[in-house]
């Protein structure tokens, strides 16, 4: 039960950092291997990182475009990972995995399920990061190239709901925010 920590001073995690951190998560057994297996696993990790970086760039562009276009309303996009983009990444991860020397070491069904969970976790977290920087600080952009969104209002209803959901001050506030986000209805 080890928590991995990702730190970035002065801004958001970069696309490259997210890509290589996710690649490390996907091949977390690499550290336990020795010899040729360890080398092959590191190669796979690097291939995954290179493949994933443009995806996190694409994700960042999508989130930033949404925030510029829709402002506060973008915070009410679904909380889960963008389904089509996540499926695209999953397919590319599996393609690299199946071309690697490890493709026969794990049952394909188990490998597919593991990849699905990791991809959805990282895509969701990255989406959340961009929305959180906007909600909490009014900032949009990439990594340390952040600019203030001209229309950001820290007291906007959607900003307050975002923090009711993610930084819930109370049990009631949290479950109320959950219901309102899921049902799209307001509770007095």
């Amino acid at each position, binding site marked *: 039960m080890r928590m991995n920590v990702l730190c970035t001073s002065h801004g958001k995690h970069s696309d490259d950092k997210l890509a290589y951190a996710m690649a490390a998560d996907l091949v977390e057994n690499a550290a336990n291997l020795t010899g040729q297996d360890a080398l092959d696993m590191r190669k796979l990790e690097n291939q995954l990182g290179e493949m994933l970086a443009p995806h996190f760039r694409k994700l960042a562009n999508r989130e930033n475009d949404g925030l510029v276009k829709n402002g506060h309303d973008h915070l009410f996009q679904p909380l889960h990972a963008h389904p089509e983009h996540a499926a695209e990444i999953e397919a590319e991860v599996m393609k690299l995995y199946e071309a690697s020397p490890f493709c026969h070491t794990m049952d394909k069904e188990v490998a597919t399920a593991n990849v699905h969970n990791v991809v959805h976790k990282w895509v969701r977290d990255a989406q959340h990061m961009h929305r959180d920087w906007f909600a909490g600080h009014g900032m949009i952009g990439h990594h340390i190239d952040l600019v203030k969104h001209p229309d950001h209002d820290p007291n906007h209803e959607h900003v307050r709901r975002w923090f009711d959901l993610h930084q819930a001050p109370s049990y009631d506030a949290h479950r109320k925010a959950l219901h309102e986000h899921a049902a*799209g209805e307001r509770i007095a």
Partner: protein
Amino acid sequence: MAGSVTTNLSNSWLAEVLSAGHCFLPPQSGVAVTANTTTAVTLGSATPGIAVGMAVTGTNVPANCVVSNISAATATSLTISQATTGACSSMTFTGDVFKIALISSTLAGNVAYGAGGVGSLTTNYGSGSGTPTQANLGTDEQSGTGTYSTGGLALVPAAIAQTNPINSAAVGYSTTIQWTGATINTAGAMIYNTTTRLTAAAAPQNNRVAGVFAFSGSVVSGTLTLTQPTQDGHTGLMRLSPN
């Protein structure tokens, strides 16, 4: 005295898990229902994962309403503790709300200690006893900065995983554990249950500590993200496993 953090689940949590003291069911959000000025609720379709005691939220649902009974005879009938004040077509059923609070790297106590001494109640493992709560963290919590606020972040449980191996069960959270625009220097984190579910010999009865997790990280006006381990029988944050 400077302190340190050791990853462990508290003794009291182990006992509470076997005493209906924690509900790790994920929320069932926006469930289609039929209810109108009554405690009787008809679900639009059979919905697994709702338990007696889960909180109920929705339009015209009074505050502090919970599921009080589930019909044994039908798959879609249940009773809630208070009548709705009008028509309700959608409800959300919520299990316990856990939170994760960061522990400052400059902690004065010793949250790794288990059998007495400074901070002994905070994690309460080894030979420790009692029921530690988040209040025991006291001034050893990371101070509020950026999007980090005192008490930490609410966690939404994910569906219980039974994989790797199949004869295990692991808890995980679907929440992104992340703080932005923050200046943080942390030695670890505490997960605790904000929901009052068990009586106790003395207050408080909420904010019971589930576990403490050691790591280190620091950011300056940046982003700190905690990535949970794979939710399975080998590495899950909280798990019942033969391994």
